[in-house]
């Protein structure tokens, strides 16, 4: 058999195999690139799904049921009665205008009246329905209602005297009373606030509303420092925020014992939690 021919044949086979191999690698790399491109294209969808509604409670959510003071159906009822009234009014003057001119047709008028009466009812009903639709359209959306609720909350101020502070500034932020000596009660309160602050961790990104988030929490500190009877005098609009507050208090307890100069018995204190700190 011819050896040079054989070699040429083998070389040809080798180079074609080399080309095939390069092609194979290029295809694999291109496939990998394409898969990665696909994964990057799909990823943004996941982000939109991830947006939580934790901070926007709807009408059926438990956070609303926890707030008894907030129920805004009142503005709906006063709007309804004044609107339908003015409509029948302009039709009444028409009837006397017809009745005043001739005397004879007065007899005919009562005959016509029963025929005319059902007619105006239908448009009135229709208009009533339209008005109802308009009223419904004008009704504030969930978001607007939540905002209004928050505004009301802010305007309302602290729910009880527990949250009144003699000195300005927040406890947890280290702002004192600008040089004024703190009372033993304030000192103890600031100590507790600092302890809770240390145990408090939450992700601000999970809360949509940046303003108006305040949780008014009242708790009883026993003389030994154990915490009991933690109640939310006013919830924040974020359930997540409230949960973190509750967890922080539970983690921070027991507190240092209540100094004798502050109180000999159990001490009921109120703390205001905001994303900026404890006040």
């Amino acid at each position, binding site marked *: *058999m011819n050896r040079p021919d054989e070699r040429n044949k083998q070389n040809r*086979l080798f180079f074609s195999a*080399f080309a095939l*191999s*390069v092609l194979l690698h290029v295809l694999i790399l291109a496939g990998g690139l394409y898969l*990665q491109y696909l*994964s*990057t294209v799909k990823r943004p969808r996941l982000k939109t799904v991830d947006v939580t509604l934790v901070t926007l409670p709807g009408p059926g959510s438990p956070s609303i049921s926890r707030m008894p003071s907030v129920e805004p159906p009142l503005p709906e009822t006063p709007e309804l009665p004044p609107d339908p009234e003015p409509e029948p009014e302009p039709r009444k003057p028409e009837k006397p205008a017809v009745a005043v001119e001739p005397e004879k047709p007065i007899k005919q008028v009562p005959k016509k009246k029963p025929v005319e009466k059902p007619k105006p009812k239908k448009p009135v009903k229709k208009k009533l329905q339209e008005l109802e639709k308009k009223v419904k359209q004008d009704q504030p959306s969930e978001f607007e209602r939540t905002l209004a609720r928050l505004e009301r909350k802010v305007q309302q101020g602290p729910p009880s005297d527990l949250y009144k502070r003699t000195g300005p500034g927040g406890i947890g932020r280290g702002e004192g009373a600008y040089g004024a000596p703190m009372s033993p009660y304030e000192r103890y309160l600031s100590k507790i606030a600092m302890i809770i602050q240390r145990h408090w961790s939450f992700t601000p990104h999970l809360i949509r509303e940046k303003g108006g988030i305040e949780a008014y929490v009242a708790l009883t500190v026993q003389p030994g420092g154990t915490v009991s009877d933690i109640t939310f005098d006013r919830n924040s609009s974020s359930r997540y925020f409230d949960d973190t507050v509750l967890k922080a208090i539970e983690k921070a307890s027991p507190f240092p014992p209540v100094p004798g100069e502050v109180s000999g018995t159990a001490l009921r204190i109120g703390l205001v939690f905001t994303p900026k700190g404890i006040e």
Partner: protein
Amino acid sequence: MFTSRIGFFSLLADTGPVVLFVLAVLLLFSVLSWTIIITKAASIKKASSDSRRFLDYFFDVSNIDKVFGETENYRNGSIARVFRAGYIEYRALGDLKDVRKSEDRIARAIRREANEETRSLARYVPFLATVGNTAPFIGLFGTVWGIMNSFLSIGVTQSASLATVAPGIAEALVATAAGLAAAIPSVIAYNYFTQQINAIERDIEDFSGEFVKSFVNELR
């Protein structure tokens, strides 16, 4: 190039020159080993199938001249080539009457061709073993180098958070992954081809004696 930092190719964007060199070497190794795999798969398959068909024909037909005429159809068969070499030597004997000398010459020619066949079948196959053995280590070298750099970056940024450490380690591990990707097919192919070549070699050895005998019978 990539908005996301997750993915094989986006990891490569931040790798150092040493790791990139290692990856380039491994890619070359992979391309060459696949070239050899394709070449050998084709040639060994042809060699063994043609040999089998030739042997069937050889045992069916007793006339050596007829068998030789038919070997053209089994050009790629290793055993057919060995037979051809023996036949050419047998014809070259001419008027040599010494049977023993003739037998020696034919046997020598057959052995020479058998060696040549084995050598040509096994050509480049050891490279697969080399890739199989060294590619993981080359990849490991790239990984060690990459991890070394990522630890250095920890020292520079003075932060040992996952965000600082993880990308560097992931980049480094790409080299090990590439090494394994090059090595695994090479090792599998090497084992398969070695076993196939050994089988063909055994067949050649077994039938060389048969061929010598048939030529000697013709001489008598």
